[in-house]
């Protein structure tokens, strides 16, 4: 609504705080004030608190209660009513639904499933994507991954359905009720920075290894973006349309069903899209707790250090992700454009064709993928990886091998950073965090950040957390350096951008486990490969956000600078980068969150610290170590997120979006 003739709404007339002038001048000197406060506190702290690590008297040992909880759950799992009458049924429902979907897929046969995928893509997104889908499924079969692909699909279907349902309901509550929104927002914000590994352990403890635990962990991971986007869509419904509906005498239900929900359909579809992507991202991680399917193949291939086999199982995941992403995105874009003429007929054709193919497959007894139609890529891939590691690891003339780089990076960057952080008195760390958060964000974010950091100390994992923090900071720095450079390149030359896009897509969707071995083969065991793995994971998002931010810069500003005779360099540094500042800050924030998400993966290649503790907890079923490490990672994530969060979080950027 434009300003003219808008009725004054209750929201827009909140009381103005007294003395706006004072506030403004305060805001002007904010940076200086914070600095002065920090100095005063520094002196006070040095005098009163002394130096050193987090004091033991301020930490709480949770291992006793956690071990007891763990024992209680194990002892009561087959007897306590909570398990028998509630969790057991939850578990049952999951198993039954996954099984049902799996059996349907099996009954369709490979031809039926491929045909169905192609026809759905055709109806929703056109011929090109239809061909892509068919090709993707064919590749899954060719790689000998047909059955695992179906298992993953079955699990995904149930997990995504549950996520969409749960997320949709939560989003509905938050979208319609302000109070629910206030309650749910911080929860969803926290979930956003929660690394998936952190909550595998509790889920496993309750549900045991297996599909139910995997599905539930996936739902916990994938539901928040759905909830967030649903709430966003519902809250953002065009006020004019809503008023028009009310003016026609619509009941609350009618307003919701005929106006508010349809108006939010783009966000809803985007939420579904995000839920699917998150669920796929979880497919491999969930294999650690018995999800089976493709993830399990990747995980098993790791055991025999077989990159080729891991890749053969990883490629179908990437293909599924690409196809599902494009199809749901296309569905979102088509909404509200041309009215679908004769859509019913098209769907009928698609359905008929699918059933025809499925029946034909069944009659000719060709339900399973023909074993002879497979291609073995493991050999060549392993050869390539061996060659790469053999030639890059060390002794490359002039620049030295990757092992030398890793060594130098560890000695000159990681070690000083870690030792420096651990040498800092604990209160000084809290102070720095608070001051930084205050400079960039608000009092609220600063308070959250300091509390999160203090919680780490209370949990008694101060030193490992700082070790992890040093790795995260180093990884973020490298990611930003590379990411912004690549982003600038992609934004300035559309050819570079086009060339980068598929590479980034693959890196983003490829399960991290797959590049674990090449990373170790190149950088050895330790913190350097952990940093490398994090950089590889976080880079795509940073590049994309940077490139998008730069290309979204107002063309008229660029034009005016060109008209003044600015060189390309001057345009970049004086116009594009300053104007793209919000995007760059968002890139920093996303970089931090993503890097932290793979800290646990870093634990698998020698990153040590919290990542190792989390893996250890999972591997040994040790709730005390694992849960505390997981909680500390979450706190670290909250802290870093708040410190790097300049303004209101932009609702649309999900993890890995």
């Amino acid at each position, binding site marked *: 609504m434009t300003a003219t003739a808008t009725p004054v709404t209750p929201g827009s007339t909140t009381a103005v705080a007294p003395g706006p002038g004072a506030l403004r001048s305060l805001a002007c000197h904010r940076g200086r004030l914070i600095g002065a406060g920090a100095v005063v506190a520094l002196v006070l702290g040095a005098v009163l608190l002394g130096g050193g690590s987090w004091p033991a008297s301020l930490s709480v040992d949770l291992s006793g209660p956690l071990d007891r909880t763990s024992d209680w759950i*194990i*002892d009561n*799992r*087959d007897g306590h009513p909570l398990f*028998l009458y509630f969790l*057991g*049924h939850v*578990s*049952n429902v999951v*198993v*039954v639904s*996954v*099984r049902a979907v799996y*059996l349907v897929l099996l009954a369709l046969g490979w031809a039926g499933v491929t045909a169905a995928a192609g026809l759905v893509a055709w109806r929703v997104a056109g011929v090109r994507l239809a061909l892509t889908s068919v090709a993707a499924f064919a590749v899954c079969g060719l790689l000998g991954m047909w059955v695992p692909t179906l298992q993953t699909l*079955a699990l995904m279907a149930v997990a995504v359905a549950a996520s969409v349902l749960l997320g949709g309901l939560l989003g509905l509550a938050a979208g319609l009720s302000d109070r629910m929104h206030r309650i749910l927002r911080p929860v969803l914000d926290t979930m956003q920075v929660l690394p998936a590994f952190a909550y595998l352990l509790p889920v496993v403890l309750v*549900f*045991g*290894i*297996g599909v139910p635990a995997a599905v539930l962990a996936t739902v916990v991971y994938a539901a928040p973006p759905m909830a967030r986007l649903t709430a966003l869509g519902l809250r953002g419904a065009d006020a004019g349309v809503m008023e028009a509906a009310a003016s026609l005498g619509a009941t609350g*239900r009618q307003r919701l069903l005929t106006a508010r929900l349809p108006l939010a359909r783009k966000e809803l579809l985007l939420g579904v899209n995000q839920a699917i992507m998150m669920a796929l991202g979880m497919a491999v991680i969930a294999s*650690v707790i*018995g999800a*089976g399917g493709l993830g*399990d193949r990747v*995980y*098993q291939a*790791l*055991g*025999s250090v*077989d990159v080729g086999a891991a890749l053969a199982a990883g490629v179908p995941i990437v293909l599924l992700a690409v196809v599902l992403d494009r199809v749901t995105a296309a569905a979102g874009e088509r909404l509200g454009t041309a009215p679908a003429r004769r859509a019913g007929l098209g769907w009928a054709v698609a359905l008929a064709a699918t059933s025809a193919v499925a029946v034909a497959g069944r009659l000719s007894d060709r339900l399973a993928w023909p074993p002879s139609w497979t291609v073995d890529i493991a050999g060549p891939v392993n050869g390539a990886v061996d060659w790469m590691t*053999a030639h890059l*690891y*060390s002794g490359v003339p002039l620049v030295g091998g990757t*092992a030398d780089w*890793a*060594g*130098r*990076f*560890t000695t000159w960057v990681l*070690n000083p950073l870690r030792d420096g952080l651990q040498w800092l008195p604990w209160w000084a760390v809290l102070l720095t965090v608070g001051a930084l958060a205050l400079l960039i964000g608000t009092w609220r974010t600063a308070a959250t950040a300091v509390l999160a950091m203090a919680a780490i100390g209370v949990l008694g994992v101060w030193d490992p957390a700082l070790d992890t923090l040093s790795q995260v900071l180093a990884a973020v720095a490298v990611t930003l350096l590379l990411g912004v450079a690549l982003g600038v390149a992609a934004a300035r030359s559309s050819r570079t951008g086009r060339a980068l896009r598929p590479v980034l897509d693959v890196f983003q969707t490829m399960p991290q486990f797959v590049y674990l*071995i090449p990373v*170790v*083969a190149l950088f*050895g*065991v*330790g*913190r*350097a*490969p952990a940093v490398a793995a994090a950089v590889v994971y976080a880079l795509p998002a940073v590049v994309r956000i940077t490139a998008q931010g730069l290309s979204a810069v107002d063309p008229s500003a660029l034009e005016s600078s060109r008209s003044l005779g600015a060189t390309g360099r001057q345009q970049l540094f004086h116009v594009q980068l300053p104007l793209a500042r919000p995007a760059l800050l968002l890139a920093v924030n996303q970089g931090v969150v993503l890097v932290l998400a793979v800290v646990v993966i870093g*634990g*698998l*290649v*020698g990153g*040590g610290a919290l990542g*190792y503790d989390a*893996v*250890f907890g*999972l*591997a040994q*079923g040790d709730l005390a170590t694992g849960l505390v490490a997981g909680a500390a990672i979450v706190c670290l994530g909250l802290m870093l997120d708040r410190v790097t969060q300049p303004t209101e979080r932009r609702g649309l950027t999900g993890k890995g979006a």
Partner: protein
Amino acid sequence: MTRTRIAALVTAAALAAGLTGCGAADMTRQASPYADAKSSRTVTLSTQSWVGAQANVAVAQYLLEHELGYRVDTVQIDEVPAWDALSQGRVDAILEDWGHPEQEKRYIDDKGTIARAGDLGVTGHIGWYVPTYFAERHPDVTDWRNLNKYADEFRTAESGGKGQLLDGSPSYVTNDKALVNSLDLDYQVVFAGSEAAQITQIKQFAKEKKPFLTYWYKPQWLFEKVPMTEVKLPAYKEGCDADPEKVACAYPHTPLQKFLNTRFADGGGDAAAFLKKFRWTTEDQNEVALMIAEQKLSPQEAAGRWVKENETTWRAWLPS
């Protein structure tokens, strides 16, 4: 309006609870959703991340499928969670266990949900190893007392100023931190975090003939690729590893054990009988493991080859 909606929700919830909650559901007795639809004769084996364990499972799976007509699912689970899964019946058998007294007490003695199924026939041993090419040049390195002398040679960026002792997966039994302390060694334990990472690192070191000191275990196929010599630690005596904080002796030699879910052991028919009898040697296991890990055969192909050549061995395992 809101009231009616709430009422409707409550009714729906009550209905749902009524429909599903009419009986108890014991989730410790649920089958995998991927179990074969046609046949109910399915066995689920736990396979661990190391290749030796994969070899056991591969051969057992091959024989169960080809000789006994079962369908076999495998699930990769870490050691301790595998006990829990076995107790719940999510898996039917663990074929290679390196000794978990705490779990044995809880699940076998107290709860009775897991039953012993005898020796695997393979003896496992954990120790500290240096590459043989290094031990040949410096024979005295194989005594722990001389390790400090070589600390400099074993230094890496990760271990800082000390020598590096490479440890592996967090799921493995290890006393190394305590050992380094008790024996007053100038070493830093670096956890590779996963066996895959550890093996990759060892191979990289070996490729360049660099010295390294690593936690490792036998039987393991890697010995065939990278010959390694054990460093002698103070001899193992019964009970010397009782206090995990103050261990100062070597790791024991452990006869590896098989375990079955109790319900499966009693009602598992031919499959259970077969798994109880399954027993082979370190050499057998290594042969299969090497085919998987180095020739990159699929576990089933490797098992197929071994089965073809060792019929006398496995005939004895089949129930008469």
